[in-house]
């Protein structure tokens, strides 16, 4: 991570940390901020694949949902430790991602997208029809997890700070990654896969690694969700959720990391606010998306260009 970017991010995270102190900040807005930052972080991890490696995953909801189920399963059984939940999520999501990435990265283009979609549908169907995990109702009414024994994450404020810390760590990890030699190779693969292979790189291994890292970050985000929402349902695994993740990345700006965080937050807040005023809110959201794609192809972060700032789009 370049020092410049690190310093640039510091005030943003400081502002996020100070957000609860803003006058008029209610518990509802903190919960909304939780969702906005959580899905922003998930979009950022998907950007590692789409924006940096050139792989479009239509199955990221499965990673998110598996993480959520991992936590919900433990919480339902009285294992309240957040760290146990995160560890369990890493194992479950990691094993699943290993299988998916192995097969999906063996194929290029649309086949990668289709394979991630098919695997995700299998996971969705499994949870939807398995009564041990609540079937179509999912696991509901789980207690909040504990950060430490006796320190329960049971308030919007505590959950908010948890997600800010997660976002900060995930962002730092992604920044380090894309700034490293590994990240440069990913971009090289995106730009010209054959040339990267010709240069001696094991392209599939790099793509698998990118897929695994993206999946684990998404799964960890999913693992934090039941602590705030008290449930994990099959809806979280549905392909439409994967589609929303892709839209978040597109809104924010591909290959920028920061853009998808903004895109995710923008999508959640837009959805929440517009749906409170009109029944046909998805038309409004659709229109906004069309406008962004037509007039801001580099996403919301592309606005920086208009303001004269240097674009962040990754290059090899």
């Amino acid at each position, binding site marked *: 991570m370049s020092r410049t970017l690190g310093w640039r991010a510091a005030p943003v995270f400081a502002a996020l940390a100070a957000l609860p102190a803003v006058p008029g900040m209610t518990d509802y807005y903190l*919960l909304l901020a939780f969702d906005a930052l959580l899905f922003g972080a998930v979009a950022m991890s998907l950007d590692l694949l789409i924006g940096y490696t050139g792989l479009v995953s239509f199955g990221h909801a499965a990673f998110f949902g598996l993480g959520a189920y991992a936590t919900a399963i433990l919480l339902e059984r009285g294992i309240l430790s957040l760290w146990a939940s995160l560890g369990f999520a890493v194992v479950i999501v990691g094993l699943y991602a290993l299988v998916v990435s192995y097969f999906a990265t063996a194929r290029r283009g649309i086949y990668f997208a289709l394979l991630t979609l098919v695997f995700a549908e299998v996971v969705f169907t499994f949870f939807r029809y398995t009564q041990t995990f609540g079937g179509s109702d999912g696991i*509901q009414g789980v207690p909040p997890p504990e950060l430490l024994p006796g320190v329960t994450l049971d308030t919007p404020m505590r959950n908010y700070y948890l997600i800010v810390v997660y976002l900060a760590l995930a962002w730092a990890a992604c920044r380090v990654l894309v700034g490293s030699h590994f990240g440069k190779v990913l971009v090289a693969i995106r730009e010209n896969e054959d040339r990267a292979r010709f240069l001696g790189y094991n392209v599939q291994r790099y793509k698998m690694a990118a897929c695994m890292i993206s999946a684990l970050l998404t799964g960890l985000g999913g693992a934090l969700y039941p602590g705030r*929402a008290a449930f994990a349902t099959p*809806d979280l695994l549905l392909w439409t959720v994967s589609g929303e993740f892709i839209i978040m990345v597109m809104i924010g700006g591909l290959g920028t990391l920061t853009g998808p965080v903004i895109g995710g937050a923008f999508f959640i807040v837009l959805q929440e606010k517009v*749906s409170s005023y009109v029944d*046909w809110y998805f038309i409004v959201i659709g229109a906004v998306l069309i406008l962004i794609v037509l007039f801001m192809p580099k996403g919301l972060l592309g606005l920086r260009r208009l303001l004269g700032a240097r674009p962040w789009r990754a290059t090899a």
Partner: protein
Amino acid sequence: MKRVTSLALLVAVALAVFLAAPAVAQQKVVKIGDLGSKVGVFEGYGKYQSMGIQLAVEEINAKGGVLGHKIEVIAEDDDTKPAPAVRKAEKLILQDGVKLIIGAVSSGSTMAVMDVTKKYKTIHWNSVSCAEFMRTTKFHKYYFSNQPDSRQQANGLAKYILDKMGKKVYIFYTDYAMGQSDGRQFKTALERLGGEVVGVAGAPLDTKDFSPWFGAINASGADVLFLAFAGTDSLRLMTQLHSFGMTKKYKLAGIDCFLLQQDLAAIAEPMEGFVQLNHFSAYNPDPNMQAFNQKFKKKFGVDANIAAGAYDAVYFWKTAVEKAGSFDSDKVSAAHEGLCTDATHIGRQCIRTEDHQVVMDMHLYRVEKGKNIPIARIDGKDAIGAAMVGQDPLKGFTWEIKKK
């Protein structure tokens, strides 16, 4: 002179504003939340729920409101999914400060919202969802329901089906919380009474083509098809069953929210003879029901339906608040328990203390030329079943077909 007139006018206006100000200031407001599906597969139920709430609130406000407060309704769409439902419920409670939430429509969403209303101690009325978990494992002290749940409906329907329609029944349900629950409870009730379930199948919510299941139904040797679907799923299913000649081949029965009365006219022929249990029909000559339908129709220009439940829920809450003399949720919850009201569309309704389920009579209806015509009245006490708070309603249940 002109200047004096202007001055007088100004003083008069100022005086009027001054005098009116306290009156305006006294217009205290209490907010309630209307949460449900406003678009999509259950759109009809959500919109009629809103209409029922609106009618009740306008009546109450016209009579001075509740405890001197005008009621303001804040409606939210839950997208028929648990995650948005939770977010909207949190918004209603934490941001808008509602004292009551009515909703949701889909059972899955309602159960997710129950965790929110439990956490934030908010009175929660359900007048549409019918999964059996809500008054058993998910129950909490702030939750109330006047929607007959799956067990009530199954108890009311099973006997009639066995006596009048046939003993071999195929259960076809929408494969999510509500349909599964209806299927399970109906299978349990039917087998307890000596009937035979010859097959079961579930089709995903929002299925477009039901024909892949028709072969199994036709091979089952059923006399009766029990259908646990709702909304646009029901419309598509009936159209397709009819085009395959299966509406003539089998006797058909279903759950109370299978189709709204408004939808029946469009598919009157496929629905002819369909039997369902419900607590409201615009074609029921019962004076209470007609009285409610008339005022609903006068307000909205359409017949009432399941919306009657949401209307009653607002009145139950208002009565409980006045009985408690406060909006405090603990006091209002306690005031609800055992509360009875006589002047509803179905006559007397009482809130059972043990599980907060409203005990009310229901009717069996048969569809004739697109109209729900009453054929029998089911006493509420006969259908409600024992209170099972905290007990697993699935204990001992199996989908296994017991061949006779």
